[in-house]
């Protein structure tokens, strides 16, 4: 499974793993839009992408979209962690300052369960 969305105490957690590409991002965008625009709105959105092994431009666009939606609805957006693969793509696109990750996972970091 490439993504998992959960809401707990008003905090929306989006966990991405494996390959994140156009096949899932279009569906995921609809899910996020529904959650961010319907009541009750989450107070924050946390993205965990530390286990992503591949991400394409649609995946990066999805993160930007989530950040933009959060900004428009006054919801806190945090990019909690990303894998080195994601970091590399962000650096190539010069977006690492716009999508600032709190932590970049390395190969040594323990693999966390999806849930």
């Amino acid at each position, binding site marked *: 499974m490439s993504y998992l969305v959960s809401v707990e105490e008003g905090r929306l957690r989006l966990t991405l793993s494996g390959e994140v590409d156009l096949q899932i991002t279009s569906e995921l965008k609809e899910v996020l839009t529904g959650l961010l625009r319907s009541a009750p709105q989450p107070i924050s959105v946390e993205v965990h992408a530390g286990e992503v092994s591949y991400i394409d431009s649609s995946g990066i*666009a999805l993160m930007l979209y989530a950040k*933009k939606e959060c900004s428009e609805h006054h919801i806190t957006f945090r990019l909690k962690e990303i894998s080195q693969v994601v970091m590399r793509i962000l650096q190539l696109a010069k977006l690492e300052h716009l999508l600032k990750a709190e932590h970049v996972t390395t190969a040594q970091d323990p693999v966390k369960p999806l849930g």
Partner: protein
Amino acid sequence: MPSSLDSPHASSVLNLLFEMLIRYEQSEDLTIVHQWGVEQLMGLVDATAASLFLADELTGKLTCVYVCGGKDITGVQLKRKQGIAGTVFETGVAQITDAASKDKRHDPQFDAASGFTTHNMITAPIISGTVRYGIVQLLNKYPETPSHRHDKGFSDFTKADLTLAEIAARIMAQGLYAIQMAHKRAQEQVLRFEISQAIEIQQLMLNPSLSIPNICAKTRPAKQLGGDFFDYLQCGEIIVFCIGDVAGKGTPAALIMSSCIALFRSFKWNGNAISSSLNAFINQLNAFLISLNSDRFVVMSLGSLSLKNRDV
């Protein structure tokens, strides 16, 4: 309708209907044709007055656009389902109202305000398929003979009158439909022309401003307008190039694509510091795309080739 098609009256009726068809087909000014049609219809059914109401596409309200023989009530509006006119418009079924004053749907204040007394009427919907355009009303039929005269001095509208009114109203609807289609075709023609112009300009944009030996490129969009692009230019001994793809297809992608090329060509490239120049361009392009506040994004390969040492 007259029982025999050979009778003079039948001949008049057929001539009128035929002429209505021709006029509605050939004229672009339906106002004049409507007026003519309503007056002719009045004559055929011996009505003393008539009115034409057309519906607003958005609100469904009926507005009186023409009156003949009665007090001028043009501009008067009826709400949906208001009165006999509103009912006929909603149901799409023509009807004869023999005694208007006894019909609860008929608003007596309407007559009081206009100074006209409605005794009887035919109300026919102007309808084509499922599209309703309005209604036509024919009021207060002249008596054919003294024996047909009511106490009020009017005669009854007949089923033949009703049928004739229905047919005439249908012809009016066809005329309105034809004009709508003509407008739609004209708009489509304008749009096709504008798209062909846009395609031409996009093709010009995809012709790099300079030709360099051994460098060539081509793009073939999936639709008429596309979001794929490429470009290259020379800055001293450096060739800067880009190959990109705007997410999506069609006109929106083409518009963003043209902005990307314009930005690429107008950017102040520095051949002596090409690395920082490339970084600066990406930052500028990112800032521009974010400012659009659109969900679309661009995937682009951007690079440089040194003609001196062939470094890429």
